[in-house]
């Protein structure tokens, strides 16, 4: 009858009453009908009460804390926009990095929002649902704050104006989009491994460091502020992903092989998506944070290694694909940027050949691979450009049925040879960039045969008609503005002119 009773409750108990204490076993409708999706994946949960809340945040505290972050973020964005902060970036080439980021990420964060709403409704455990719901809310925050950050860039630079339309249609966007489509079409437990664990825990630093530290290094106050503001949300998401893995593994030994297969699949899927980030890190940032290889070593080999060590006691093994990814750290950024350079008539961002000084940086960062395999090619292409014979690849490549990259990656034991695998399934031939993508297909062929692969669709006339011009129209790419080389682009000219207006009295 007084506050003393209340004070006896520990924080943990108070939180329990404010979350799982709210739920009950339904009797007018069977629990299996109320929660129809949390058993079909084969994960066995015996006691949802064993779920440890990874963080204890009630809504009153959440609103206050997040509102404060939002006020600060929008104050900075407003000031950044008003003062034409975009002219303070190191070089207009930088803006192409954020074109890739802002064209893909808001829509992907949005899919994450919907996926966590699904998980936040479908898990039987109340504590798990609440944690997923909070993440759903955070994810829509990230989608919106990213769009709001991109909005001002879109006013002054090309390539971002059609991002909602292009996510579904632009050929290279099918790489990250198919990743999220794959995750959200899985059940709630696989979703948690795909996004909650692999993406948010194992790989998140490899996304955030390149883009957000990249922004900080390159004078992009807007993007940097968004990134730092999202960081404390991300910390919560990481603890949720890890808790979910541990929970599944502690509940039943039969869960181990299922979880292991998901970790294997999603580590590889995620690593493949990150090749886009690798190229950006090594080639697109005028002021580099670190090389992709260094980032991989710190954030995957060291941090990820410690994580897998921690999971060893549950019987989890480091995925086989890590061996190949480790070899590829020397190569993927170079292979991908070369691909973008050759196909840049079909990209909504500009590309360029690294300057001599940048080539030296790459040589120094990649002593085992760059001079041998990649430098000669860039020097040749630079020479060809000088002679007015700019190299373009007008042939369209075969795509991997799983990760949807063109076949541009090489054999793990021979960087001189393109890697290509094939599988016959129900009288059709399917192509893969690697053993690991092939294995992913073989585990769930009925899923991956559905993939909407941009190149075959193009040849079937489903991308606006037959030719490249029709493709541009269909994908809402403005040729001569959004695509091709940075050198001579409208972006380059405008930036130089505006920068002149901002820094001189001419």
């Amino acid at each position, binding site marked *: 009858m007084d506050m003393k009773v209340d004070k*006896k409750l520990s924080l943990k108990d108070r939180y329990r009453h404010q979350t799982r204490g709210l739920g009950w076993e339904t*009797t007018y409708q069977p629990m299996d009908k109320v929660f129809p999706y949390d058993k079909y994946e084969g994960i066995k949960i015996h006691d949802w009460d064993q779920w440890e809340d990874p963080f204890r945040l009630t809504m009153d505290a959440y609103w206050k804390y997040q509102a404060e972050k*939002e006020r600060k973020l929008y104050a900075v964005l407003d000031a950044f926009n008003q003062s034409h902060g975009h002219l303070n970036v190191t070089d207009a080439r930088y803006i192409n990095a954020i074109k890739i980021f802002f064209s893909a990420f808001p829509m992907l964060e949005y*899919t994450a929002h919907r996926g966590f*709403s699904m998980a936040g409704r479908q898990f039987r455990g109340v504590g798990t649902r609440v944690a997923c719901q909070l993440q759903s809310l955070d994810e829509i925050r990230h989608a919106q704050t990213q769009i709001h950050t991109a909005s001002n860039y879109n006013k002054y630079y090309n390539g971002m104006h059609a991002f909602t339309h292009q996510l579904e*249609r632009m050929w290279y966007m099918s790489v990250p989009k198919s990743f999220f489509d794959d995750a959200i079409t899985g059940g709630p437990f696989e979703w948690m491994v795909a996004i909650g664990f692999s993406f948010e825990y194992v790989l998140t630093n490899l996304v955030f460091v390149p883009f957000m530290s990249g922004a900080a290094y390159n004078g992009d106050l807007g993007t940097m502020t968004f990134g730092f503001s999202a960081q404390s949300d991300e910390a919560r998401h990481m603890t949720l992903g890890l808790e979910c893995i541990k929970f599944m593994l502690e509940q039943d030994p039969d869960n181990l092989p299922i979880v292991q297969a998901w970790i294997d699949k999603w580590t590889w899927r995620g690593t493949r998506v990150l090749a886009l980030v690798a190229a950006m890190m090594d080639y697109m940032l005028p002021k580099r944070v670190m090389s992709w290889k260094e980032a991989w070593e710190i954030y995957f080999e060291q941090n990820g290694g410690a994580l897998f060590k921690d999971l060893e006691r549950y019987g989890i093994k480091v995925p086989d694909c890590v061996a190949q990814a480790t070899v590829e750290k020397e190569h993927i950024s170079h292979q991908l940027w070369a691909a973008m350079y050759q196909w840049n008539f079909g990209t909504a961002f500009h590309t360029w050949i690294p300057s001599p000084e940048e080539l030296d940086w790459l040589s120094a960062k990649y002593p085992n691979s760059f001079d041998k395999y990649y430098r000669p090619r860039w020097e040749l292409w630079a020479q060809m450009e000088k002679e007015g014979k700019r190299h373009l690849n007008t042939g369209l490549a075969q795509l991997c049925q799983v990760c949807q990259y063109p076949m541009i990656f090489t054999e793990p034991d021979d960087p001189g040879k393109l890697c290509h695998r094939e599988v016959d399934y129900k009288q059709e031939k399917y192509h893969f960039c690697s053993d690991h993508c092939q294995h992913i297909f073989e585990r769930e062929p009925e899923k991956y045969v559905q993939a909407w692969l941009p190149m075959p669709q193009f040849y079937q006339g489903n991308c606006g008609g037959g030719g490249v011009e029709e493709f541009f129209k269909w994908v809402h790419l403005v040729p001569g503005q959004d695509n091709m080389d940075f050198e001579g682009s409208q972006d380059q000219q405008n930036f130089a002119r505006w920068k002149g207006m901002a820094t001189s009295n001419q």
Partner: protein
Amino acid sequence: MQIDLQTIDIKPLRQTFDHLARRFGDKPASRYQEGTYDIQQTSIFHYRPTWEPDREIFDERRTAIRMKDWYDFKDPRQFYYGTYTITRAKQQESADSAFAFALDAGLADELPAAVKKLVMEVLLPMRHMEWGANMNNTFISAYGYGTAIEAACMYAAMDRLGIAQQLTRIGMAIDGEVALDAAKELWLSAPAWQGLRRYVEDSFVVHDWFELFIAQNLVLDSLLYPFLYLHVEKRASREGSALPGLVTKFMKDWEAETGRWVDAVVKTAVAESAHNKALIASWVKTYSASADAALEALAQPIFGADTAAVVDSIRSDFQVRLQKVGL
């Protein structure tokens, strides 16, 4: 007098993204527009859900309602995450001070027995109903179509969790865990509560997300909110305590604001077509019948002979509301 501060004047290439220019013309878009319109994918999906193989990831067919443009479900509050959290943080702050004031004034210690009974036996078990409302709005966020409606439902879902937590805090302040256990027991077993619990549990297995919106946000809330925060509260204050009025400030502020959004959504769907109108009217009819019965069962022990008058007044307010949205 206006002070004319200057920044350098650079002419933008375009005022907004293409998809917003197509909708609203090439002019600067609001942050609500940028954060809402056309963000959900609509056409090219790589795989069908393993959990529902005959549908796409986002699929208009998950409701029987039809809309030419799902973004007609505009939120009159224009909430995006930033405005949403900032609004709720302010409301929470003022609710917290009312709550603290009530406790500091010793109102919890001096609670008249009749009022304590109302709080324990009527208000507290509602935390489970609120949790059900959280589940239902989360469902709509998961399976609804278009960012405009589903994002607003996600905000509503979290609001309902917040309200359930606010009710929990009231229980803990008055009688600690005992109060919560007793309230849960009522929810699970007391005959007066079973109509409502059945209604809520039945709503958990509804597959049509717009039907669920009607069942929860329109029908049930339109009956329960005035019942709790008008009639029961009036009764408590007549019994000599201001406590229930003070500690439920958040819910009243929230309902006044959120009701506007619910009405706007329903009005838009009804105005779209005769098909929608007929469907929604039939849902309202079905759900009203069981919600009315559940309400009456809850009101009877409190209002006795006045029950009919209380319930009629709530019903007739609901009828007025339905008329305003075109039903």
